[in-house]
């Protein structure tokens, strides 16, 4: 019997696991995929929102500003890339300029610090590549950028280091209520008995909720499609660029990424299929045309990747946070600004449980610092020292991103064993560059197979079933090696 079972290991579930790992409690996280952060967390804009957007009084508003305040320190503690870039909301007409003032008022009500309306000249002085049609902007200095899956991995690795257990390939398909606990069953027949359940199942949170009770809410994913540009375009803007929503809907975001690329998107399309992350030519063309209105010189030739992500929007039009039954707590419908809000939501959970009569005790000893060796980011002397200490840091596997064998081995040894090429990519950046894994794939397969003991033929590109290879050559005659 454990104390907590967290269902879902996206950014929300991982932040909750990290928070709970500070307390004297047995915590298990159940994730349906073969790795964490494979839903909305791995395909979104990666923006830390300042907090002027949510309507005052909503849960989104309540957790956004505190989350934005927490992120810089968390990023430093967990060695996660974060940059407080600030953001600009652009107006292109007098009417939109009025919209900026409404946002300013809302932001001030939400407690967002430092908001300021800038003139067209001041705006273009900050971001010279913006269209000359810009009439004004709202500047928010506390906005920033983070790599969402990197943050989720850091939360979960730290949680695991502090005693949390993670079960992968563990889709919860049954929830039984016993007298003083819940019994969870997974698709592959595993059972977990737990005093408390925290439902952080993202796009599937409505279904998980329904396993324990009737249908309380439903989730309709909103699909958004993106362009990711090469690093050569990374300095197009220094800040996160938004637009005032107009009659065509919410404009696209143009933002730098923490790795020096440029991200452009998303559009918004409600979809029925919770796994539908296919991209569509017409949708991408729409994103492109909207973005070109903002920055006419955007170098679409430097696009290196398109992807689509799903935001888990609940029909309540706000976050769904709270007990649905004694001991069963939902953290659902965490659409934007969910990435920003996640640590603040997690931070609140021990208080919510205490208020419900389940107080938690802090651990006397909790290991909250995480350090990652990243060879390409080290100054010369530290590079030299790192390679002297471990020659594997001198063996570069991914040449586009300068990622060493040592970093890939480290990623395999931080509590969660990746089982896919994309798992290594998310942890180290290997394969993220110009060649998109063409050069380093074979080297990573070899390291992964050696480190995890998985037969190379079973290594996946990404989720379970996405096998890289169909077999071995020369295996028809003679014995298969």
């Amino acid at each position, binding site marked *: 019997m454990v104390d907590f079972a967290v269902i879902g290991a996206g950014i929300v579930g991982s932040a909750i696991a990290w928070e709970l790992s500070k307390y004297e409690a047995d915590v298990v996280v159940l994730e349906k995929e073969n790795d964490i952060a494979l839903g909305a967390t791995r395909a979104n804009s990666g923006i830390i929102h300042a907090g002027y957007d949510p309507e005052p009084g909503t849960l989104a508003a309540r957790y956004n500003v505190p989350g934005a305040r927490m992120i810089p320190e968390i990023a430093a503690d967990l060695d996660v890339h974060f940059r407080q870039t600030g953001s600009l909301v652009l107006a292109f007409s007098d009417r939109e300029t009025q919209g900026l003032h409404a946002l300013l008022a809302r932001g001030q009500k939400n407690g967002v610090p430092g908001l300021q309306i800038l003139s067209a000249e001041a705006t273009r002085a900050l971001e010279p590549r913006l269209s000359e049609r810009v009439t004004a902007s709202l500047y928010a200095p506390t906005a920033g950028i983070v790599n969402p899956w990197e943050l989720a991995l850091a939360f979960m690795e730290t949680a695991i280091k502090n005693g949390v257990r993670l079960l992968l390939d563990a889709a919860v398909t049954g929830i039984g209520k016993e007298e003083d606990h819940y019994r969870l069953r997974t698709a592959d027949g595993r059972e977990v008995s737990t005093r408390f359940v925290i439902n952080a199942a993202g796009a599937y949170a409505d279904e998980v909720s329904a396993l324990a009770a009737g249908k309380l809410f439903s989730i309709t994913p909103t699909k958004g499609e993106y362009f990711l540009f090469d690093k050569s375009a990374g300095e197009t803007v220094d800040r996160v660029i938004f637009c005032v929503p107009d009659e065509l809907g919410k404009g696209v975001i143009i933002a730098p990424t923490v790795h020096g690329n440029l991200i452009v998107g998303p559009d918004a399309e409600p979809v029925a299929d919770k796994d539908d992350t296919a991209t569509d030519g017409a949708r991408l063309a729409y994103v492109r045309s909207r973005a070109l209105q903002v920055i006419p010189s955007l170098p679409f030739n430097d696009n290196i990747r398109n992807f689509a992500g799903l935001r888990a929007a609940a029909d309540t039009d706000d976050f769904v946070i709270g007990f649905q039954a004694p001991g069963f707590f939902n953290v659902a419908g965490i659409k934007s600004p969910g990435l920003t809000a996640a640590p603040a939501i997690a931070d609140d959970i021990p208080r919510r449980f205490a208020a419900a009569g389940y107080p938690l005790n802090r651990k006397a000893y909790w290991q909250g610092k995480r350090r990652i060796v990243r060879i390409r980011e080290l100054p010369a002397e530290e590079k030299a020292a790192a390679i002297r200490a471990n020659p594997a840091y001198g063996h570069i596997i991914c040449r586009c991103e300068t990622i060493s064998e040592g970093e890939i081995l480290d990623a395999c040894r931080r509590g969660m064993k990746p089982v896919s090429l994309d798992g290594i990519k998310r942890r180290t950046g290997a394969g993220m560059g110009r060649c998109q894994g063409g050069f380093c794939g074979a080297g990573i397969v070899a390291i992964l197979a050696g480190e995890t003991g998985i037969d190379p033929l079973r290594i996946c590109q990404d989720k379970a079933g996405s096998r890289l290879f169909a077999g071995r050559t*020369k295996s028809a005659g003679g014995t298969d090696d």
Partner: protein
Amino acid sequence: MIDLICICCPEGCRLQVDPDHDYAVTGNRCPRGETYGREEVISPVRIVTSTVRLTSETVPRLPVKTDRPVPKSVMFQVMDEINRVVLNPPVRLGQPVISDVAGTGADVVATRTVTA
């Protein structure tokens, strides 16, 4: 007159072969083109390149080739024999791996040296 593109080397000479005049070849820039043009019309041949299994941890496959062109029609028989070979290193470049493969008279030989 039959138009062909010479495949002997990447130059890709445009050949014309005249079956009415003893398969005379024109358009070639070297003697190999003449041989190719005649053979391609009368009985086409190809060099087959592939790999064979090695019992090495670090080098799982050894590249090989037929040491002379074999009839195009037997390429898959040649592959069947190649697919059955397993070798222990060391292997040196040029070392025969299969002799008289598929009864063609050609040998399959290693095209690289593997020390361990």
